[in-house]
């Protein structure tokens, strides 16, 4: 068969189809009639749309099913409140950190200054057995625990596309829990019975405080990982005259409610975790864990140290103000006696100690009685604790930290 016979053959139908496809697309010329009529106010309708049948309107049937359908969380929900409440939770962090926390809670800061009694108690050296116990606690939290969870992925900035083998190990929540509980247990063992019998230790308690600042409701919802309570209120004697306080900063052009998302569903009262008829309700010390995998920013950038410090201030304020409201009522402003709360924040390695003195619940403006935050920040307990060529190793243990923890418990 000759190839040319096949090639020269034409199919008139294919040619028709190709012409129709191309020449069938016509753009109508705009004569301007529609625009002219619209300007005169005459309604112009497309003929093909006019001829189409209108869809039948059917009424919505509410079918009774096996359970009540949950209502969508919008304005029509019964619990919806008109006034938004700016909420700070345990896992979120303030944008400006401690500066914003100062403005929100009307606090002045005494940097690196703790009451003299605490410093005295901390300077007492503990016997070697206790420090051995602390080292064992650190190793058991970091190295000897058997939890295996997927840890965050390791990334190399030089080779962004390389996926490292996934590491399984102890999660930061578990490590902090084990470490802090073991440390507290050591402190309790080495203290006298008249101190320990008066104290209760609670793990993972919720605390909420709701307050008004400049016509806006603000709520702090926090979880205290360890709350040490006692049967008499905590008192500190501090001489306020010589201390150079860091005053309340001006955050212009940022407002104090930035990075606090507004919620329309909230409880109208503060909540303190212990009932008022229990004798050991007075808050003594609160331990706050900083878990890098759980606490993050709105904008998903790494949390800065200033933001971490701000977290401990707001936490101490939450506990103190919730307790003050339970004692003196929801609407009190200036307290007859200051409420003191000790606060220790840790991420396993770094410890931030602080004492919050709550003088007033009236956080409007910057004048009048202010709350005080005495702090000692960024004390490292150890440099590293891990397996080094198969051997569990603890580098550069710092014995000062135990002194402060003991002082905080015994004051």
């Amino acid at each position: 068969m000759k190839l040319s016979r096949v090639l020269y053959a034409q199919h008139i139908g294919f040619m028709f189809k190709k012409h129709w496809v191309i020449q069938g697309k016509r753009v109508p010329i705009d004569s301007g009639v529609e625009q002219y009529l619209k300007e005169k106010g005459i309604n112009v309708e497309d003929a093909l749309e006019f001829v189409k049948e209108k869809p039948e309107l059917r009424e919505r049937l509410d079918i009774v099913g096996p359970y009540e359908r949950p209502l969508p969380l919008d304005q029509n929900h019964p619990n919806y409140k008109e006034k938004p409440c700016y909420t700070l939770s345990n896992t979120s962090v303030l944008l400006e950190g401690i500066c914003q926390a100062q403005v929100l809670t009307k606090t002045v800061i005494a940097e690196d200054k703790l009451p003299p009694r605490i410093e005295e108690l901390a300077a007492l050296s503990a016997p070697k057995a206790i420090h051995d116990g602390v080292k064992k606690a650190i190793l058991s939290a970091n190295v000897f625990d058997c939890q295996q969870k997927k840890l965050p992925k390791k990334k190399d900035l030089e080779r962004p596309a390389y996926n490292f083998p996934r590491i399984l190990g102890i999660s930061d929540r578990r490590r902090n829990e084990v470490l802090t509980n073991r440390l507290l247990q050591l402190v309790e063992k080495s203290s006298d019975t008249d101190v320990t019998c008066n104290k209760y230790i609670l793990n993972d308690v919720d605390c909420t405080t709701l307050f008004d600042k400049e016509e806006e409701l603000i709520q702090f919802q926090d979880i205290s990982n360890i709350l040490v309570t006692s049967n008499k209120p905590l008192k500190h004697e501090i001489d306020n005259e010589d201390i150079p306080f860091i005053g309340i900063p001006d955050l212009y052009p940022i407002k104090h409610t930035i990075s606090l998302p507004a919620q329309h569903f909230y409880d109208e009262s503060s909540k303190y975790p212990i009932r008022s008829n229990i004798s050991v309700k007075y808050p003594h010390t609160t331990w706050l864990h900083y878990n890098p995998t759980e606490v993050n920013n709105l904008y998903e950038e790494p949390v800065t140290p200033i933001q971490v410090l701000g977290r401990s201030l707001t936490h101490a304020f939450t506990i103190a103000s919730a307790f003050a409201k339970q004692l003196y009522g929801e609407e009190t402003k200036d307290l007859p006696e200051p409420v003191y709360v000790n606060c220790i924040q840790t991420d396993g390695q770094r410890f931030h100690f602080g004492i919050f003195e709550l003088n007033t619940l009236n956080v409007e403006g910057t004048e009048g009685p202010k709350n005080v935050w005495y702090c000692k920040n960024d004390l490292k307990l150890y440099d590293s604790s891990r397996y080094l060529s198969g051997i569990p190793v603890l580098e550069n243990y710092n014995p000062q930290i135990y002194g402060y923890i003991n002082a905080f418990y015994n004051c």
Partner: protein
Amino acid sequence: MALNRLFSNLIISTTTSTICKRTLHASAISYASKPNIVKPKPGFGKSYRRIVHFPEEYTVKPLNVTNLAGRDPVSGRVVAKGIGGGIKHKYHWIAWVRDGPTEGPPQEEKVIQIIEDGCRTAHIALVGVGDKLKYILATENMKAGDIIKTSRHLPRIPVRANEGDAFVLGALPTGTLVHCIEKEPGQGGLYVHAAGTSGTILRKQNDRIIVQMPSKRLFSFDQHCMAVVGRLSNVDHGDTPIGSPQRNRWLGNRPRSGLWHRKDGRHGRKIRPPKPVKEIKNPKNFPLPTIQLNMVP
């Protein structure tokens, strides 16, 4: 436009109109027995690299993205060759509209942090004002803690503007470097986004400002259009070579093939007369929708 014309003398030509000629273009492939496929072509801002899942309200949280690898989401066919793979970056939603008060002192905003964005060459700045956080394109010397101003006020005397401030084009003196220029007042900055680029304000003509773009083309803008002063960040981006074929793959570019002669044919340098100043405004007349006639009654 790019419609195949088989026998053009058989067709009644459409009247040439003053309608803007830049519309989306498509190509049709017709074989004898295969169905007619109409695929869009990449260009005019649409690059078929990724789809961003935008929520209803503006948020600072990085948004999820699906990579398209050069495919058209409607037809699923490959539309742009050479795109695919690469590291997936979350999209930071940038607030393109820099609104300010029309009278009175300019609004002040604080720069909180400069962040590198994987979806663009310039860096972005996280900015806080009042209650709100937003992202904007960072300029060359911007750092955390800077205060930047925005104002829509058109004064009689030009404003002495600092880097990062946003003013209307009519308020800026000639010779200022600007970027993120709006097309129509209130639309959001559309022009000049790449790293290290900037436009220059050359002269004012009646009520329009003539700006030279980074490609040396002259555009004329309305004097009420907002523009941000300064050069964009990451100035060395244009000077750093990609370095390795693997890094090109990380950027999402698949290997290309093709015989390429530097000075031949379409790749050679052309000497042409400069184009006239183009007036930038939104088109007002749009062509009526095309009617497709077919054989089926």
